[in-house]
């Protein structure tokens, strides 16, 4: 989205304009939800976390800085919520200890819902990436954030973000090559 239009939306949101919220919601809703869904691997959890992202935007809207970049702000909140959820989930799993049997890992709903073999393969390859690489790849390669914007979201230096992105691209390229048998991973 054009920076001037984004500033105007933020300005209206700061004034409590509900239609500005609606425009941001329509523009960013699938992107935030897809990011969370691919990070959590679960539609229901992604739905809950995404709802909280939007309620936080509504609560914070009137106090946003005039130069707030919406995509970076929303992905930062989404990622922080995901981390909190993951920590809570890890603690509860640790507390449950040996009482619960480890279930086999089913294909994520996004793998199952993938229309083509290529997209299913890509979903699997992304799902198999370590979290730190998955998130930067989703933010930059899929959602179109620049490495500088992703660095803000991930609380990294610009250089660290660029290096991590390069490693993530190498890993996904290699994973696709392993699956397809083609050097370079062309599907």
């Amino acid at each position: 989205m054009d920076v001037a239009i984004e500033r105007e939306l933020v300005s209206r949101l700061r004034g409590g304009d509900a239609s500005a919220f609606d425009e941001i919601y329509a523009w960013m809703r699938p992107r935030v939800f897809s990011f969370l869904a691919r990070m959590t691997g679960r539609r229901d959890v992604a739905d809950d976390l995404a709802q909280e992202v939007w309620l936080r935007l509504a609560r914070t809207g009137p106090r946003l800085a005039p130069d707030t970049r919406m995509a970076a702000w929303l992905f930062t909140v989404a990622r922080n919520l995901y981390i909190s959820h993951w920590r809570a989930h890890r603690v509860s799993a640790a507390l449950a200890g040996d009482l619960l049997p480890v279930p086999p890992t089913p294909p994520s709903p996004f793998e199952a819902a993938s229309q083509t073999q290529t997209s299913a393969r890509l979903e699997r390859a992304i799902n198999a990436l370590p979290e730190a690489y998955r998130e930067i790849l989703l933010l930059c390669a899929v959602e179109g954030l620049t490495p500088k914007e992703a660095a803000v979201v991930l609380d990294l230096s610009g250089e660290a973000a660029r290096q991590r992105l390069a490693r993530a691209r190498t890993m996904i390229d290699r994973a696709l090559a392993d699956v397809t048998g083609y050097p370079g991973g062309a599907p």
Partner: protein
Amino acid sequence: MRDDDLDQLLRSNLAAHDVPATRVVEVREAAHRELRASARGLRRGWRAFEATASLAVAAAQLVWVITVLFGR
């Protein structure tokens, strides 16, 4: 694979997912309520600040007048 090609491959093959339409309406309505409450709270806070500032100015003026009249 080049970076641009890889990004293009990912963008064209990974579909954006979305929440159900009923959920969209629910979230939007809840967010509107939160936004109205937040904007109202901020306006109320600003009015309280203005009122406090006006009182402080009036008190300062009063002190000045008293000092001028009875200060010597």
